[in-house]
C-alpha cells in the first residue's frame, strides 16, 4: 500500500473548481502545490522556490485574463521555468561542476513534527518521500502528466495545454507513469 497513514475524510474531497476571486488568493492557494511540483522535478528546494517565484512574477502579467484561465496558465509557465532550470542545471553539472555536490538531492521539505501523532506524521513523510523518489525516477513527461492529472486533478484538456501536447499524448504518458509508479512502489512494500 502506498499510504500507510489513516486517511483523512477532508482530504478525499476533490479540489474546488471555483476560480479564485483575486490573483493574490490564487497565488496563495497554488503556491505550496507549485512548490511540491517543482520540488519533484528539480530535486533542490532552493531551485524549486526560485522557479515558483519566477512563475508568480510572470503570472502577474496575465492578471487581466479571466480567472478560469489562471490555473492552466500558471502551470504552463511553471513547467517551462522548470524545464529551463533543468537545462541550466544539466549544463552546470556537465561542464562546471563535474564532481561537485550539486547532483545530490535535497530531502523532501517537511514541517517538523509537532503536537500529537508524531508517528503518523513520520509515516506520511516516509510514504511521501517514496512517492517523490518514484516520481523523480520517471521521465519528465510522465511525471508531469501524473502530477497534473492525478495529484492536481486538472482535466485532460488543461493538462494537454499545460504540457503543450495532444490529449492522446497525455493519456499515453499517464498510463505509462501509472504503470511505472505502481511497479516501483510495489518494490518498496
Amino acid at each position, binding site marked *: 500500500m502506498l499510504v500507510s497513514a489513516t486517511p483523512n475524510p477532508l482530504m478525499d474531497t476533490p479540489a474546488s473548481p471555483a476560480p479564485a476571486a483575486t490573483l493574490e488568493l490564487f497565488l496563495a492557494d497554488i*503556491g505550496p502545490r507549485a512548490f511540491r511540483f517543482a520540488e519533484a522535478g528539480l530535486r533542490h528546494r532552493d531551485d524549486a522556490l526560485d522557479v515558483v517565484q519566477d512563475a508568480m512574477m510572470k503570472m502577474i502579467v496575465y492578471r487581466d485574463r479571466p480567472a478560469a484561465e489562471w490555473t492552466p496558465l500558471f502551470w504552463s509557465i511553471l513547467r517551462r521555468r522548470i524545464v529551463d532550470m533543468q537545462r541550466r542545471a544539466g549544463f552546470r553539472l556537465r561542464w562546471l561542476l563535474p564532481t561537485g555536490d550539486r547532483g545530490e538531492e535535497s530531502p523532501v521539505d*517537511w514541517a517538523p513534527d509537532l503536537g500529537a501523532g508524531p508517528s503518523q506524521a513520520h509515516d506520511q513523510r516516509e510514504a511521501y518521500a517514496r*512517492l517523490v523518489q518514484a516520481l523523480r525516477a520517471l521521465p519528465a513527461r510522465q511525471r508531469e502528466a501524473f502530477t497534473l492529472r492525478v495529484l492536481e486533478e486538472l482535466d485532460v484538456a488543461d493538462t494537454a495545454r499545460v504540457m503543450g501536447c495532444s490529449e492522446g499524448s497525455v493519456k499515453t504518458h499517464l498510463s505509462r507513469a501509472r*504503470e511505472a509508479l505502481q511497479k516501483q512502489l510495489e518494490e518498496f512494500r
Partner: protein
Amino acid sequence: MNPAHPHDDTGFDAQARGLHRASLAQVSPQTLMRLRTARHEAQRAAPESARSWRWLTATAFSAVLAVGIGLQFLPRTSTAPAPGAATPVAVTDGETALDEASAGALEEDPDLYLWLASADAQPLAME
C-alpha cells in the same frame, strides 16, 4: 493499488492524491515564508510594470501627436505646385497619354502579331 488489476487505477490514484494533500499541509514554515515573500514581491512588481507601460504609451502618443502637428506646417507640394513645376507635369501627362495610345495601337494591330510569327522577326530576336 492492485497489481492483479493494472487498469483499476482509482485506488492507486486516490492514495497518491491523499498523500499529496497531506504533503501540502506539511510544507515547512521556512518554505511557506519564502512563498509568501515571493507572492508579495510579484504583487509589488506588478504596479511598477504597469506604470512603465503607461509611461511608454504616453510617450509614444505624444511623439505621434508631435509628428502630426509638424506635418501640418510642411509645404504641400501636391495641392499648390510651383509655377516651374507645371511643365514637367504636363510632359509627364503627355508621355503617359502617348504610352497609352501606343499600347492601344499595338494591342489592336493584328499585323504586329503576324510579323512576330514570321521568319523576318527571328533574326531580330537573335541579335
